[in-house]
């Protein structure tokens, strides 16, 4: 049962992401993953309404916290496939500490950032990826902050899978999501999406976005080169989408827990030894 009424604006980029995510899940289910093993965790914002439109397990968390929530979901039961739908406000402003540390510890979750480069649901203020000079209601004369490049931050934070997608290319995005979920470790996908109401980047993206050749994925240098092709907030360059970086490293939950599945462990513990120690 899902919410029959989608309340995104007509033409909103979130539709493309919804389609891509649904298809990615359908693909993996066909491949044998149990549908009920997917859990989608969302923050708060336009993007986050996606959980109401998906007939999947989900946790509609707090603004800024979906990654933290998702880490707990995964740690308690590492068999689950945990997907985060975060906004740029969630991931790069309010809750950037969780993004960076989740990447650093290489926990095996997949983070999609619905990056419309604005706080949309609160009617369009600038975020960390809005361009310098962004005119929103909190910056009527233009914001005075430059955007950062989240992919570069993720590389510095040791994410093991870094990609960029575009909401208007749902097939491509679907494949990215599949790869992200299949990747064992922290997968980060920044999804560019136009916000029709507050930052309509549709035309720009349609003109500039191109699919990058996915090679040398284990080279940080090569990844950086692709990542730096386009700086958020600039309008000069072509915008590559695709997987930029992918390396294999031990995942956090395995290292922390071994084979333990906390949600399914036996509850009985003998405390005798522990108390004997204390005599």
């Amino acid at each position, binding site marked *: *049962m899902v919410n029959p009424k989608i309340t995104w604006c007509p033409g909103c980029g979130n539709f493309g992401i919804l389609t891509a995510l649904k298809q990615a899940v359908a693909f993996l289910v066909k491949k044998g993953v149990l549908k009920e093993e997917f859990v989608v965790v969302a923050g708060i914002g336009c993007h986050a309404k996606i959980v109401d439109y998906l007939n999947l397990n989900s946790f509609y968390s707090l603004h800024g916290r979906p990654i933290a929530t998702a880490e707990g979901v995964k740690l308690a039961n590492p068999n689950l496939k945990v997907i985060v739908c975060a906004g740029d406000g969630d991931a790069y402003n309010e809750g950037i500490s969780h993004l960076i540390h989740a990447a650093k510890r290489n926990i095996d979750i997949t983070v999609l950032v619905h990056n419309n480069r604005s706080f949309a649901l609160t009617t369009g203020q600038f975020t960390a990826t809005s361009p310098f000079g962004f005119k929103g209601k909190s910056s009527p004369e233009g914001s005075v902050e430059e955007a950062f490049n989240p992919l570069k931050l993720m590389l510095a934070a040791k994410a093991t899978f870094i990609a960029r997608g575009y909401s208007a290319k749902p097939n491509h995005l679907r494949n990215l999501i599949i790869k992200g979920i299949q990747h064992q470790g922290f997968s980060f996908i920044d999804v560019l999406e136009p916000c029709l109401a507050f930052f309509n980047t549709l035309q720009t993206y349609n003109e500039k976005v191109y699919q990058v050749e996915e090679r040398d994925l284990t080279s940080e240098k090569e990844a950086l080169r692709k990542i730096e092709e386009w700086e958020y907030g600039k309008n000069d360059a072509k915008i590559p989408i695709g997987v930029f970086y992918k390396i294999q490293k031990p995942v956090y939950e395995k290292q922390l827990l071994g084979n*333990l599945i*906390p949600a399914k462990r036996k509850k009985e513990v003998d405390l005798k030894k522990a108390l004997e120690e204390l005599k």
Partner: protein
Amino acid sequence: MIQDYSILIGGAAGQGSRKAGLIIAKLFSNFGYRIFIYDDYQSLIRGGHNFSHIRASAKKILSHRRKIDFLLALDKNTLEKHRNDLDKKGIVVDLPIKTITKKAGGMPIMENTALIAGFAKMMGIDWETLEKVLKKEFKKLQSLNLKVAKAAFEKTSNLFKLKKLNQKVLPLVTGNQALALGAVKAGLDFYFAYPMTPATGILHYLAAHQEDFNLGVAQLENEIGLVNAAIGAAYSGARAMVGTSGGGFALMVEALSLAAQSETPLVVVESQRPGPATGVPTYTAQGDLLFALTAGHGDIVRFVIAPGDAEEAFFWSGKILNLAWQYQTPSILLIDKEISESTFSFNETVLAEVQYEKPLIWDKNGQYQRYQDTKNGISPLAFPGQKGIITKATGYEHDEFGLTVEEEKKVKKMQDKRLRKFKEMEKAVEELPAVKVYGNKNAKKAIVAWGSTKGPAKEAAEKLGIKMIQPVILQPFPEKQFKKALKGVEKLVLVETNALGQLGKILAGFGFQVNTKILKYNGRPFLPEEIEEGLKHG
């Protein structure tokens, strides 16, 4: 005369006075004594002045007293600071520990071993007991430590013949350890934390026993991250607990509200220290009570439980974990440094009182609805990963399935469901031993005290022959039990370690007026004597 010894051992941080204090306590404990240790230390790693006040008594005790029978000093400072508290018959245990240690080939850090050994000899504790305890406590450099001990033991002359009591030897457990054990007994699956005095001991203890207890322990990037992770873990079906102090707790309150709205079980251990803000971080206070009782935005009822010693910490930690899951609610175990880091003789009979209690699990009939609108407001739980079950948790107001709603009727409906659940929580509290009474149960004068102040207040009440009332569950407030406890009381004296008389304000809200207040807010716990004096004047 009752056997009741007070030993103070002090030194600079890094000299190992705390460890020495614990060993001395174990010596007495091995002789059948009941122990309480108050550890006093500053927020620094080397230098300054730390001390442990060990009380060993034939009877169960829950606090230290002012007077000192034996003063053991690892540095001069200790002598100067505490000499005044020495009993008339008190003894300064002044041994040539430097020389002894050196001669025995020991290192300076082993001077505390020499002091312990000399003191043991002086008290008439046999070498075998001493050796057994030292072997247990010193895994590193064991033989050298034993050598130093032996030298000191031989160098010192015996003065007393400590009576061996015919009582079971009990483990010595801090409040932090006790509550960790209680939670484990009740099925704790995951502990999340970020270091913060005085709660850090829980993290350390569980991390050290992660394999023994077969559970998850994680230190994450900050309190906000970990409390939200704990909520996520509970959604997945793991019993999660987090621990912190006031400042870290403050960072968790938004998530507490999320737990309330999403009806996710969550236990937060809040071990208080003197605030506001960083305050006096290695000392004690009961100043976060009002904050804990109302933490989180929106209409929330949460369990707030304040155990008053190690056994209660064990029992209530297990209980609150079970309650959190039965009622799918955020819950707060509210203690303070005095409970967390003090050491108590722990009566193992309490072990049997805590079990894993099964929460309401979905029976797999029909379609699963996370927020099914049941009569008592409690909706069956189901966890992700099971075929045929879709479980949708949310921090938005929602319908039974977990989808967002805004319409007025639907909004009210879910709030009504939660209100019914709150009523059930109130009922549950009245079924539990939520208010305890000690001392002279027929007295007209009564002390009311909570949490760590239980120890000194109980002792004072027993000495003065008055009543002592301890509300253990503070939310939902056990009104009926409290009223019953007040029967016959004409004068009620509030005793707590905060500046505003916070429990007093809560009681007033239920129509219970206190007649006098004895408040202490210098970072130190009450001594029984202080309460006795306060009662005489007040």
